[in-house]
C-alpha cells in the first residue's frame, strides 16, 4: 500500500535482449496453484463459464475454483504491465474481488469467462500503470528505457504452457512492426498514441498495425468468439 514506487519499476534491466516480444521458453515454475490452473485444457472454457455463472449467484466455493483457474493469468498480466510485484499483487486482489462483485453481469454468449476476467484484469492493470506513471513526473517516464525492456524479463516467473508456445509462434508470424505495436500496447500498457510516439510512426499507421496484428493473431490462434 505504500505509494513509493518499488524498484522494479525504475531499475534498469540487467538483461537487454534485442527486441521485446521475444518470448523465450522457460521451465515451469514449480508449485503453481492446483486444479484447473495447471492446464487450460480444451474443456476449460465450458467448466469455467459454468463456475463463473455460479459465482454470480453468490457461490463462494465456485469462486475459489475460479480464482485457482485465473489468478496466475491475472497476476501475470498485472506483472507484465506493472513490472512491480506489489502493485501486481494489489491489482490481482482488486480484480478478483471485482470478478466476485460483478460476476452476475457475465454473459457467456458474449465471450468466455476467461476472456471476460482477463479483459477486466488488463484494464485494471493499465488503469494502475497510467496512474502510477502520471503520479511520477511524466517527463521522467523514460520511454527509451521501456523500449529496451525485453519481454523476457517476465520470463523467469512466467509459467510455461501450451498457450505460451502458441502465442509466441503466432506473435513471431506477425510483421515486425505489427508485433512491436501489439506487444507495446498489450504488455506495455501503452495507448496507441504512446506507441506511435515511441516508434515515431504516424497515428493512423499504428492504429492499423495494432488492429491488423490482432486480426492476424486471431486467425493464427484460431480464436472464435
Amino acid at each position, binding site marked *: 500500500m505504500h505509494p513509493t514506487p518499488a524498484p522494479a519499476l525504475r531499475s534498469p534491466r540487467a538483461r537487454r535482449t534485442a527486441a521485446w516480444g521475444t518470448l523465450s521458453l522457460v521451465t515451469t515454475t514449480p508449485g503453481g496453484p492446483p486444479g484447473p490452473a495447471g492446464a487450460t485444457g480444451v474443456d476449460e472454457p465450458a467448466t469455467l463459464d459454468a463456475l463463473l455463472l455460479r459465482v454470480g449467484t453468490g457461490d463462494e466455493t465456485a469462486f475459489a475454483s475460479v480464482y485457482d483457474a485465473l489468478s496466475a493469468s491475472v497476476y501475470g498480466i498485472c506483472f507484465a504491465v506493472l513490472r512491480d510485484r506489489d502493485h501486481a499483487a494489489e491489482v490481482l486482489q482488486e480484480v478478483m474481488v471485482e470478478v466476485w462483485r460483478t460476476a452476475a453481469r457475465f454473459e457467456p454468449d458474449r465471450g468466455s469467462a476467461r476472456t471476460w476476467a482477463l479483459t477486466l484484469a488488463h484494464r485494471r492493470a493499465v488503469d494502475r500503470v497510467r496512474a502510477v506513471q502520471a503520479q511520477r513526473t511524466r517527463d521522467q517516464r523514460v520511454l527509451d528505457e521501456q523500449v529496451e525492456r525485453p519481454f523476457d524479463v517476465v520470463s523467469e516467473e512466467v509459467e510455461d504452457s501450451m498457450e505460451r508456445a502458441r502465442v509466441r509462434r503466432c506473435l513471431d508470424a506477425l510483421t515486425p512492426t505489427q508485433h512491436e505495436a501489439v506487444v507495446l500496447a498489450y504488455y506495455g500498457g501503452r495507448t496507441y498514441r504512446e506507441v506511435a510516439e515511441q516508434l515515431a510512426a504516424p497515428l493512423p499507421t499504428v492504429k492499423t498495425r495494432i488492429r491488423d496484428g490482432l486480426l492476424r493473431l486471431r486467425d493464427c490462434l484460431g480464436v472464435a*468468439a
Partner: protein
Amino acid sequence: MSAHDDAGRTDVRDLLGAYALDAVDDVERRAVERLVASDPDAAQELAELRATAALLGSAVRTAPPADARGAVLEAIRRTPQDRTPDGDGRAVRVDDEPAAGAVPDTAVRDTAAPDTAAPGTAGDVPGDPRGVTDLAARRRARRPNWLAVAAIAVGAAAVPASVAWQQAQEADRAREQAQVLAALLAEPDTEVVRGQVEGGGTAVGVLGTDQAVFTATGLEDPGAGREYQLWVIRDGVAVPDAVMPDRSGEVRAVTDAFAAGDALAVTVEPRGGSLEPTTVPVVVLAAEA
C-alpha cells in the same frame, strides 16, 4: 481532440484493435462503445479481438504470491455482490457497505466512517453540572475519541496510494474534459445552460451538436454506496451515461451520446450506475427551444 471529433465510422472501426488492448483514451473508448452497440459486425470483431488479447494474457501466466488467495477469499466474504437489474425482480443493486479494500472508491469512503462516529462520542462527554472537574470521568469519556482518532489514522495510512492514483486519473480526465470543453465552446451552435440541483448545488451543461459537457458544484454527498449518474434524455427516453464520482461536491462528465435537441439529466443511483433511472432526476438541463 479534433482527430476524433469528426471521426467517421471507418475510423472508429480502425480503433477496435487498440480498444481491445485498452490503448485508447476515454473519448475514443466511448466512440468505440457506441459503434459496437449499433453494429453487430463490429461487436463480433471486438469479441474476437478481446479473446485474442486474453490469450496474450494467458501466455504470461505467473504464479501469484501465495498469500493473495487467502486475502481474496477473505475479502469476498465481506463484499456484497452487484445484482443485475433484470431477472428475479430483486433490487437493482445490493450495495450496502462494501468491505474495505474491495475497490479503491470504497477504501476512500470507508475512512469517513470514523468521522461520523466521532461526533456521537464527543457528545457523550458530560458537562459537570456543579463545575467540579472529574478527571477520571473526562478520561473515561475521552477514550472513545482516541479510538476514533486511531481508527481514522489507520484508515488514512491505508489510503494514500489509491487516492494518489485516483487523483492522477482524475487529472488525466480533467485535461481531456478541458479539451472537449474548449472545442465545444468554439462551435457556433453550442449552448450553455445552467440549473439548480434539487437538494443543493448548481449544474452547468455545455450542449454541443454531438457532444456535451456536464458539471455541477456544491452537491450533497450522494450517500454511502450511491453515485451521481448522467443520462441523455432523447424523445423522453433516458439513455444511461457516465457515473460521475463525487469530488467534494463536484462532478463532471463528457458525453458523446448527446445530440442537438437532447437534454441532460442526473439521478442518484446505486454505485456503479443503473441501466434505467431508479430515482427522480435532481436536475435536468436542456437547450432553449
